[in-house]
């Protein structure tokens, strides 16, 4: 690795001040959370920062809390800790499953959801699950905080919406009410240690009569960034998730999927798998709406 200075500010104010000073001095600064992508990229010469700012000692980035109706997952909370958090495991089983798909046990001990999001891989497993669940990114700016929906945070392959001097602090989502369920599934050639060929996340909520009142479907690995397939969700609202409704949602998702062909699958294959996964994920989320289960 090319030489760099390492600092670990221990408060939000210290972090903000150090970022401002680095910006003023024109230092190429890189924020470090779990480092499971960053250190590999630095070892391979893809990134060569002059300053590493480790944010794990800033308490806000380590938060894992339920405050009223909001779940907060600090940007540097490791995956293993996030997926084991009772509310995540119980109310967000789809997200918990997506987190469990990140790398190996060793990677999950360090890798953070915030890092997974900032790294902005089109195939990142947690991103569709975060989008479907309505997560917001809380961002530290030069003079305050701003929030951005997760679907607007990733702006391209490896690109995110953070301006110079900004840092992702936490991810926040409304705690789901009753008759609600989420799911995430992906297709990979291997069962473990693989990258999604297609990934689909869903969050459904039913009304008192068991009719789908809201449906968010997010697609991953079929475009430069994961995105909300609004038409697929709309095709489900007002239905009970009957087979024809699932077919309509799948068709709507396939219509907006814009996959590429690469060594992991052709564009046509990916589009078809996207439709298959939409049906499976909606069926699973629907079951969780009624059982509230954590399967």
């Amino acid at each position: 690795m090319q030489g760099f200075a390492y600092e670990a500010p221990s408060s939000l104010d210290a972090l903000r001040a150090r970022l401002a000073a680095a910006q003023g001095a024109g230092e190429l600064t890189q924020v470090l959370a779990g480092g499971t992508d960053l250190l590999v990229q630095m070892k391979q010469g893809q990134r060569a920062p002059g300053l590493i700012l480790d944010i794990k000692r800033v308490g806000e980035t380590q938060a894992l809390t339920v405050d009223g109706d909001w779940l907060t997952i600090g940007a540097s909370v490791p995956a293993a800790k996030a997926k084991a958090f009772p509310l995540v495991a119980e109310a967000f089983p789809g997200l918990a499953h997506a987190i469990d798909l990140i790398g190996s046990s060793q990677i999950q001990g360090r890798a953070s959801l915030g890092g997974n999001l900032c790294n902005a891989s089109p195939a990142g497993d947690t991103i569709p699950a975060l989008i479907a669940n309505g997560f917001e990114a809380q961002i530290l700016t030069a003079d305050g905080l701003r929030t951005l929906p997760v679907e607007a945070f990733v702006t391209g392959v490896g690109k995110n919406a953070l301006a110079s001097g900004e840092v992702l602090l936490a991810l926040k989502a409304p705690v789901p009410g009753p008759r609600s369920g989420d799911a995430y599934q992906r297709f990979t050639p291997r069962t473990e240690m693989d990258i999604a060929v297609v990934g689909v996340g869903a969050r459904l909520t039913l009304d008192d009569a068991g009719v789908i009142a809201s449906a968010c479907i997010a697609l991953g690995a079929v475009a430069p960034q994961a995105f909300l397939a609004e038409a697929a969700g709309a095709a489900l609202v007002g239905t009970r998730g009957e087979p024809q409704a699932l077919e309509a949602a799948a068709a709507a998702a396939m219509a907006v999927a814009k996959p590429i062909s690469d060594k992991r699958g052709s564009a046509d294959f990916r589009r078809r798998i996207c439709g298959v996964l939409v049906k499976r994920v909606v069926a699973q989320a629907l079951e969780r709406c009624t059982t509230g289960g954590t399967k």
Partner: protein
Amino acid sequence: MKVHVQTEVNGEAVEFLCDPTATLLDVLRDNLGLRGSKEGCGTGDCGACSVELDGALACSCLILAAETQGRSVATIEGVATPEALHPLQSHLLKSAGLQCGVCTPGIVVAAKHLLEEDPNPTEEAVRYFLAGNLCRCTGYDKIIRAVLDAAAEMRGEAA
């Protein structure tokens, strides 16, 4: 400029100076003489450098040594006592769950972490949990059997 780090390794206070670019694995092996953790890939794929940092399982090749200031590191060297091997180690020997041995320290550290979380894992759970520990010699079967046998022994059941 060197970084001054005070940390704890296997329960003992440790102090070292390192370059900011040094990984925990570099420091364990080169500064502290703890050469049980191996560098297989250097990119977090093989698990041969597995350690625990504040109780979290991690690849020491993907941790900057400077990050360990004030933390607690557990390595393969802290697994056995001077009197006895850990049951995982004895069962790996008994089952011939190793050949070249480069992956073995990482497998012991990772499997120990798993058994502390789940003393009675299924074979499938062991296979999934150890998916990040690559072994190019054994074909895994004997390793998995050794972990299941060690788990049974640790639960007080006949292996």
